[in-house]
């Protein structure tokens, strides 16, 4: 059974803290993505990566960074958390072009920044 695993289901942090959200996939996918989901706004892409040590900005990268040191792991980093980063964060992965078309999602991390 294919799996995208996010390390935490719920997180509560304080303003100014450094926050790490971890995502691991076991499908040998090249692509990995971080989205945030907010009511009324749908899903918005923060960053994506199509290879180890590669990263590309999505639509809303400000205030975030990412790390991909191994193919199966993609981390989202909030250097100094702010209240407007309270959101549901979804990690996803997929094969690179020409293969299986689907994007597989993790179960999400609900982050609250107080």
């Amino acid at each position, binding site marked *: 059974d294919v799996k995208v695993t996010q390390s935490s289901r719920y997180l509560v942090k304080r303003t100014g803290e450094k926050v790490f959200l971890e995502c691991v996939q076991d499908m040998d996918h*090249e*692509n990995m*993505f971080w*989205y945030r989901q907010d009511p*009324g*706004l*749908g*899903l*918005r*892409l923060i960053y*994506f990566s*199509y290879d180890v040590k590669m990263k*590309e900005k*999505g639509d809303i990268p400000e205030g975030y960074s990412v790390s991909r040191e191994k193919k199966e792991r993609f981390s989202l980093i909030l250097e100094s958390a702010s209240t407007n980063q309270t959101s549901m964060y*979804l990690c*996803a992965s*997929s*094969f*690179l*072009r*020409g293969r299986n*078309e*689907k*994007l*597989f*999602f*993790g*179960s*999400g991390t609900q982050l609250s920044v107080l």
Partner: protein
Amino acid sequence: ELKVEQNPLFLSMQEGKNYTIYCNYSTTSDRLYWYRQDPGKSLESLFVLLSNGAVKQEGRLMASLDTKARLSTLHITAAVHDLSATYFCAVDSRRGGSQGNLIFGKGTKLSVKP
């Protein structure tokens, strides 16, 4: 810039009725996805539509794609309560040249009532 618009955003249906959700997108794309999200859960892939005129059906749901009109529809036949969820369409933006870099609509929250 690729934009994806869904309508309606909220849909309350009676069991047994038919309805259609619409998804318009602003620039050319060769693949469109439909996802389902249950409350508190992650996104589950329903359909991937890869060409003009593509039609896919699963149970009471049928999705179609018209790339010339930049329009996809998700038709619900004889709705049942189990179909209550939020439905998202997403279009592959092809940023970075790889697949799976999706732009999502805001979602249609479907509620099926007895």
